[in-house]
């Protein structure tokens, strides 16, 4: 069983590795969910940054992303 204070460090470490990705990770009960997300291809570092933001910041950033998607969809091929 890992000590609680080490969980954050392990998650940060796993997130850092998620970019290089698919390296065998140390399994633990506490980080099974993180590992499953990494294995699926989810960028955990983005989730970590998002969790640190406020709800308002998340909604505004989502709105910016959605506006970009809508602009790209309306864009014409040259």
């Amino acid at each position, binding site marked *: 069983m890992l000590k609680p204070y080490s969980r954050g460090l392990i998650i940060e470490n796993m997130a850092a590795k998620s970019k290089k990705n698919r390296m065998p990770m140390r399994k633990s009960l506490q980080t099974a969910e993180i590992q499953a*997300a990494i294995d699926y291809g989810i960028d955990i570092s983005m989730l970590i940054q998002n969790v640190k933001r406020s709800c308002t910041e998340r909604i505004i950033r989502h709105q910016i992303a959605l506006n970009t998607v809508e602009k790209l969809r309306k864009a014409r091929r040259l």
Partner: protein
Amino acid sequence: MSSDFLNLLERLVNADVDFVVIGGFAGVVHGCTYVTQDIDICCDFSPATLLALQRAISDLHPVHRMTPKRKKLKLTKQTCVQFKDLYLDTDIGQLDCLSFIDGLGDYNQVKGESELIEVEEMKVRVLSLDALIKAKKSMSRPRDKEAVLQLEAIKELKNSQQDLL
């Protein structure tokens, strides 16, 4: 016109529509990184609520987006009782209104599993992280798999947030 979900939420709040944000947008509020193109809400489908909702978005040219000719939204006290769900499109985004969520239940049960958040000085009810995971799991659509994985990872990150900061 582009989507403007904050504006849509603000209109519902200002019109005193009692609702809970559910679905993909609730995931965004909790920290998911995907982009969703509609807002799903669960609300009480009483005539009073639905008529308040209609008033809130009446100038946004709301239509039933699932009907072949995209019929205009024209609710009356009498017709309100016909609906269990409303799938609407407006000038500033799609708004799906549900009266029941699989895995959770009706509006009162959904409200019981929601939390109040503050966004730009307005208070909005959003489905809790645990309830959202439960609802997404019960739908078991392929596209919900990633959402569940993100939400479970977020739950783990929030549990260890103190350690991360």
